[in-house]
């Protein structure tokens, strides 16, 4: 919210995502830094960034379903798996290029999301949570039990690197640019959706039991939230498939779904930027733990591997618990308070 006396004088200005020159400058510098990142960072950090970008898409999808539309979803990893398998089938079985396989993966995941969205129209809360957990198990059951010539069964799928004309995305640096473009498109799309009437309907369904009386198609809105969230997960899953180049069911577990929720909580429910920040922060902590561990053992040999790594895991758990206890609305809430205070300064908030 802008302070008193500051208001937009045109519709274009009011609806603009980037509103000031300073914001444009900051965005341009940030974009340039992102583009140059693979040349400035070590190979490991580029690989970490790749994972962050792919995970961001999945968590943004979860933010739409849960953070905006209020529909709890504990099966986001399963939808990601559907996308990964969908893209793999399209590439391996039909020989189609990755730029076809990735959207098809997303659409197949959206189809799966639609099926679960229909249940969301009838049930909510605890029962919906249980139903989405079922998605996890159903996904594993279907992949392992269908004929292995269809979905690879226990063998999984091996993929060739993604290609776009002469470009081959077979290195972490090349993948980084592919994932950065994909994430930018998906995040921009999410902003657009959430500022549309569909986005407003999501928030209305989440916040107000009277949304139906206001003329909003509540069951349809819930189903759409699931479809969109699953589509994002599917795109993320398809990109994941091209990063790892091997897909099997045990890569998409309930544990992963819980991590996605943790990322959303840390960043802040109901914020696209929050989903991105949460993903980056959790991943930094995870990677920091893994990186520091071997060095700590090297410098302090008295500490054995099991003590160091286990302690680090406890630390990671404490970070998440700390957020839930001290700032349950996430980092974006804290940032919004800071922004409002800064804009009103020197007056009290």
């Amino acid at each position, binding site marked *: 919210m802008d302070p008193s006396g500051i208001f937009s004088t045109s519709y274009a200005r009011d609806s603009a995502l980037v509103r000031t020159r300073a914001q444009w400058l900051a965005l341009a510098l940030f974009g340039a830094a992102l583009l140059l990142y693979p040349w400035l960072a070590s190979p490991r950090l580029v690989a970490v960034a790749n994972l962050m970008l792919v995970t961001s898409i999945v968590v943004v999808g979860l933010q739409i379903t849960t953070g905006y539309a209020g529909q709890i979803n504990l099966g986001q990893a399963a939808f990601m798996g559907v996308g990964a398998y969908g893209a793999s089938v399209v590439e391996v079985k039909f020989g189609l290029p990755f730029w076809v396989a990735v959207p098809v993966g997303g659409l197949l995941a959206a189809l799966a999301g639609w099926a679960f969205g229909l249940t969301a129209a009838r049930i909510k809360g605890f029962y919906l949570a249980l139903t989405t957990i079922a998605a996890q198990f159903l996904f594993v059951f279907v992949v*392992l039990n269908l004929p292995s010539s269809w979905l690879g069964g226990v063998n999984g799928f091996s993929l060739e690197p993604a290609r776009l004309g002469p470009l081959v995305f077979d290195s*972490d640096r090349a993948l980084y640019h592919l994932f950065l473009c994909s994430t930018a498109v998906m995040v921009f799309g999410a902003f657009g959706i959430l500022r549309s009437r569909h986005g407003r309907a999501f928030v209305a369904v989440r916040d107000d039991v009277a949304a139906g009386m206001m003329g909003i198609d509540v069951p349809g809105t819930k189903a759409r939230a699931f479809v969109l969230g699953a589509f994002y997960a599917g795109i993320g899953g398809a990109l994941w498939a091209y990063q790892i180049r091997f897909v099997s069911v045990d890569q998409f577990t309930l544990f992963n779904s819980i991590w996605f929720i943790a990322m959303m909580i840390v960043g802040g429910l109901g914020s696209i930027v929050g989903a991105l920040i949460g993903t980056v922060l959790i991943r930094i902590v995870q990677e920091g733990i893994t990186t520091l561990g071997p060095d700590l053992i090297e410098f302090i040999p008295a500490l054995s591997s099991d003590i160091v790594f286990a302690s680090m895991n406890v630390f990671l758990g404490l970070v998440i618990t700390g957020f839930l206890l001290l700032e349950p609305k996430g980092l974006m809430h804290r940032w919004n308070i800071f922004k409002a205070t800064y804009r009103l300064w020197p007056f009290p908030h």
Partner: protein
Amino acid sequence: MQRRPFLTCATAVACGLLLSTTAHAQTTINVAGLADFAGPYANVMNDMQGGRLAVLDWWNKEFGEKLKVRIAMKTYDTRYDVAQTASLWPGIKAELKPALVLGLGGPDAAALQQRLPEDKVPMLFGTAAYGFGWKPGQWALNIRPTYAHEAAGFLEWFRATKLDGKRPVKVAIITSEATPAYADMAKGLQSYTKAHPDKATFVEAIWTEVQPADLTLQVRRLANAGTDVIVIQTNTAQAVATKRALQALGKNIPIMLSLHNGVAGSSRALGDANGFAGDFEVGAIADASEDDTTARKFYRMLQDKHGLKSSWNAMTMIGLGQSIVAVRAIEAAVKAKGADKVTGEAVHAALLATPFTSAELMGLLPGVDFSVDSPFPTGSAKVNVATMKEGKVVRAAGDVAVPTVPKW
């Protein structure tokens, strides 16, 4: 400066440089160890890691000093997570430049199996192999054949010794669909029984939860079908649930376990130190039996001279077995190429070209011979069968030949 002090200083500097040159003459070959100290295998990782480090220390002192080579291992915690392994690998490759990776399990294989051939770094696993990894030209290699091969070796021994070879063994498997690895065990066993109907008949695969609460109904079905042996290679929880079901039904069908869920650990989980008496644990690696085997002697020597603190159990054995193949492969690569030319490619070539005998592997493994066609030993594969007597693990049979199992 006067002449005498100058000469003294110059001599000291020259000696220092000379010593430093001698020290640098030793070539260091890096190995990356992937571990899980913060994930599902955290509670057993220390034993496995202890085994890995003790073998490296032993080799560096016994062989490395003569060859002027030191093998250094840096350990990375992957949390048994594909994403973590995938994000770690570019850094490991760039910073450590490993000639070999000691992997832990499925997530490491999933994350790296497409990258290892391109990066030309081989990876060794201490666990048994899976059918889905049975492809030619692999860089991720298992020191043991598949779980199905290990079960097949046992079944042929069981048929010959317990049934006098008169009829096929009626075998059932209890497993889970939770992971491809568990499902693969059943599919492999089915493949074996289908190819050898005169040796074994497949009764049924019981698909259950990873941690089942009760299996009485399912086990009754198996008992009524006249099952001779129940195979459980997944985990301790399924072994315990099956044992409880057998006890409740008053049946005595032998259970064949793998090493990681062996008779000692399963008995402890059952709450009876002799609970799995008469059952079997099988693996193509030395068992943690009380017998005075070559592997046991090697273990004791590592305890005495190389600070091995890990207990005498299957996880230690997996760590010992994995690293003994690693050091022998690096040794072969050093002899073939020279110490300063040992790359991942050279170690991979040595792994494929060198048949390692049981004696070279200190009795920890029956012998290992990789080929381009299969990423696990087949020709030299043999299994050890251990059982439980009076609360102790004792060897029932050693070096039992593994039959051929068709790909599945």
